[in-house]
């Protein structure tokens, strides 16, 4: 099938999805023990969206994501070590501990970056696409954003400009059915947010967000379109948030019945089955074991990394004398 991932790519996607899952499981355990700081937003059950989407792009393509971006970070090629170090506020983190879990960025992999202002990634990616167009580069930019973010004003403004100027940007709407604690239908009167694409003269498509292959294909098609100068695309990946909003969420509003079918369709399970058919169970188990081992090593290293030391930030100074 055109634009389908190769077996090697699928193996890489699987590896990264397991890294993401394992990273979050261990983080979750640390959080339970009170050993993390601030809220942590897990993307369990949504790994296929971030990892497979990034797999369909090149390293020098730009990607922006949300407060819930571990799968995107890992997908874009950031190391577990650097991510974990950042989350534990260490000097070796991607932002030297300045950013934390929600605000990771890494220019070398085009990951620019996490964003905890809901919706902010949308004009961010659009602005990068504008740069790409002006500099006539062979690049695309992509933003992964939530169903909640789709209701922000900047979403509308940015998509309108992207459609108007045919900017090389991919709008990947990760519809996990929840804003913070309320369901998507409490935030919008339309169930399929991708129908709005028509209002911006761009294609709007729905994909199964738990099917890594489907996500990869849709993003690959959109990226080709963008590189051809034909403009933006909106892809709505339907998925589900299985772990609540964040570590500070007291829960109680997601029912077991609602959750069950999604747990059944866990994206890692799905891809594992597919890959087992292609390369055999042993190979898949080996991938998963190596992924978990990398995460274990990363935690060990990151947790013994040093904390940064404080300095006034000179470029922000308000007086010339402190410059």
């Amino acid at each position: 099938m055109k634009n389908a991932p190769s077996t090697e790519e699928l193996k890489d996607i699987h590896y990264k999805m397991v890294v993401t899952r394992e990273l979050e499981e261990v983080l979750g355990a640390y959080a339970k023990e009170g050993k993390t700081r601030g809220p942590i937003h897990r993307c369990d059950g949504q790994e296929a969206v971030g990892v497979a989407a990034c797999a369909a792009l090149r390293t020098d393509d730009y990607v922006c994501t949300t407060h819930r971006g571990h799968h995107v970070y890992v997908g874009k090629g950031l190391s577990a070590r650097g991510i974990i170090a950042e989350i534990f506020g260490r000097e070796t983190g991607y932002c030297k501990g300045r950013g934390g879990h929600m605000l990771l960025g890494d220019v070398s992999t085009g990951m620019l970056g996490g964003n905890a202002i809901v919706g902010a990634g949308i004009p961010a990616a659009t602005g990068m696409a504008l740069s790409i167009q002006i500099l006539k580069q062979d690049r695309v930019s992509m933003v992964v954003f939530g169903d909640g973010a789709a209701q922000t004003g900047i979403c509308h403004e940015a998509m309108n400009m992207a459609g108007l100027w045919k900017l090389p940007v991919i709008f990947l709407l990760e519809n996990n059915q929840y804003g913070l604690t309320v369901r998507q239908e409490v935030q919008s009167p339309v169930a399929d947010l991708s129908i709005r694409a028509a209002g911006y003269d761009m294609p709007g498509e729905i994909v199964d967000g738990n099917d890594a292959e489907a996500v990869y294909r849709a993003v690959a098609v959109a990226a080709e379109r963008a590189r051809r100068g034909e403009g933006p695309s909106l892809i709505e990946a339907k998925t589900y948030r299985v772990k609540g909003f964040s570590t500070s969420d007291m829960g109680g509003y997601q029912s077991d019945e609602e959750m069950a079918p999604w747990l059944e369709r866990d994206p890692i399970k799905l891809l594992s089955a597919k890959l087992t058919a292609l390369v055999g169970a042993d190979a898949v188990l080996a991938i998963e074991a190596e992924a978990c081992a990398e995460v274990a090593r990363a935690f060990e290293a990151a947790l013994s990394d040093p904390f940064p030391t404080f300095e006034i930030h000179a470029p922000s100074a308000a007086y010339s004398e402190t410059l």
Partner: protein
Amino acid sequence: MTLMRYAEALNAALREEMQRDPSVFLFGEDVGRYGGVFKVSKGLRDEFGDARVRDTPISEQALTAMAVTAAMSGTKPVLEIMYADFLPLSLDALINQASVFSYLWEGQVDMPFVLRTQGGGGVGTGAQHAKSLDAMVCHIPGLKVVAPATPADAKGLLKSAIRDRQPVIFLEHKLLYNTRGEVPDGDDVLVPIGKAKVVVEGKHVSIFASSKMVIEAENAAKLLAEDGIEAEVIDLRTLRPLDLDAIRQSIAKTNHAVVVNEGWTFCGYASELSATIMEYCFDDLDAPVARVAMPDMAIPYSEPLEMAVLPNAVKIAAAARKALA
């Protein structure tokens, strides 16, 4: 008197005012079913229904603009903006709508809305979820701005704010929600907007603060007391309109001032306090007013970095000592 948490005091104020006046309604992200991420509106949707306690999409800009005009057309909206960091999204509605129309259409319409939000750092929420942007809202004519430090003031000021005919920006602090204090009983116990309160009496130096910084100022006063310095701590409670009388009285006695605000220093609220005090009390001052505020930089996430930037009792005490030196 009843011992309550700050969040409970706010909840009680909302409940009482909603019972009292059917035109009061709440809206904001997650305020309904979940009761607010800081649980301030807990139980209110069950009691008052989902027309009056409304979960909203993530649309701060339009929500604020809607609060302005809902207030001009017969209701008394109480809008929750989840983090003060998102106030920039509300500013157009405040500056170009609320402020403008309350002057232009004066006499034709009242504008009784309250915008509640919470700011402040200390728990690793990062550069986009820990700011205090007091100065931004305090710059706007036609608005009142309050920032209570105790459960009693939280309740009494929120009730006053809801009953006020002007827009009131109500600034809470994420680290205050779980603090406890005695709150006077009675549905009509209000705390007036525009009145500061002396929380520690002293004669050597006046420390002006609001919100969580009042606690830091009180702790600073204890540190100073160890050196025999008697600091007076004034809880401003209202940031706009500022209680000039209270400021003048204290400075006339102490001749020294420290002003504290958790927002950035440059063009910050502490700068306004400093300028005003020096302008109105110049002859009473023996030393320049000392500002204790956030250094001018984004708030870092990592614990040692975040703790280094936040104003605290030790920094306040040091500023007071320097002023007295």
